[in-house]
């Protein structure tokens, strides 16, 4: 079996008010070296297949059709063999 570890991130051109608020809180906590925080999503999908090429294609289709909004987000993923 393969597990896809998917990261969905806001495009650099898109403002991230949530990340900005976290940066402010980190400054308040004394982490003054923090210059930027960006918040994204992490998604795991487990496939009933060990065919990396197939799973990679499927994960791309899944990201394009649902997991990421192409207007505002980009995605990347890595595949990992897991024991069933």
């Amino acid at each position: 079996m393969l597990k896809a570890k998917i990261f969905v991130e806001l495009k650099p051109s898109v403002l991230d008010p949530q990340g900005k608020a976290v940066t402010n809180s980190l400054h308040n906590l004394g982490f003054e070296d923090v210059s930027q925080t960006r918040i994204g999503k992490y998604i795991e999908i487990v496939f009933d297949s060990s065919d990396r090429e197939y799973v990679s294609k499927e994960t791309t289709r899944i990201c394009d059709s649902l997991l990421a909004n192409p207007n505002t987000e980009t995605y990347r993923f890595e595949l990992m063999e897991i024991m069933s």
Partner: protein
Amino acid sequence: MKVSVITFPGSNCDHDAYEVFRSRGHITRMIWHKDHDLQNPDLVILPGGFSYGDYLRCGALARFSPIMNEVIAFAEKSGFVIGICNGFQILTEAGLLPGALMRNNSINFVCKHQMLRVESANSPFTQGIKVGSLLDTPIAHKEGNYFIDPDGLKALQDNDQILFRYCDAQGQISPQANPNGSLDNIAGIVNKGRNVLGMMPHPERSATESVYSQDGKRIFEALESYFDGGN
């Protein structure tokens, strides 16, 4: 008019919309999101709420509800569709309107009365309303921050697709009058075909005598006169 209001799991403004159209004398039906028949409407309403709990992204899961195939086909055949609040988010996710609705720049849920300026009378939803008219309409959302890339924004402006902008009580469009950080103070847009309207403010919550403002009614009156005019 014959009006079909779609209910998704988590919709909470479907009954408000239903009641407004029913009380205005229209044949109004509630349609469950798993249905496959829109029942031959003149107008489809995608109501406000929190469809699918706003999981993943607002509107992203509702966009794949069974009835959306019919809504997309209806819109592509020039049928009239209004998406209000969560309905607007669903329309962008479905690709019926360009852009996306992001987290408010304040990160807060914003619930208040908001002035809108009518920016174009060139649509069935605003015909007869003077450009520059102000509408006092409630907003209630956390993801209403309209975003589109620069080319997309230019296309909206060039094609006169921006119908409503957030403004102050004097009608000034400014960052201070922008409740959520929307690009260009955009509150509502139409598609190129001018038959699909998406807006974050709630005209259905400002359309009856029992509430504070009746300004939202003017959008419904515009549509009614469009249909009465035999168009």
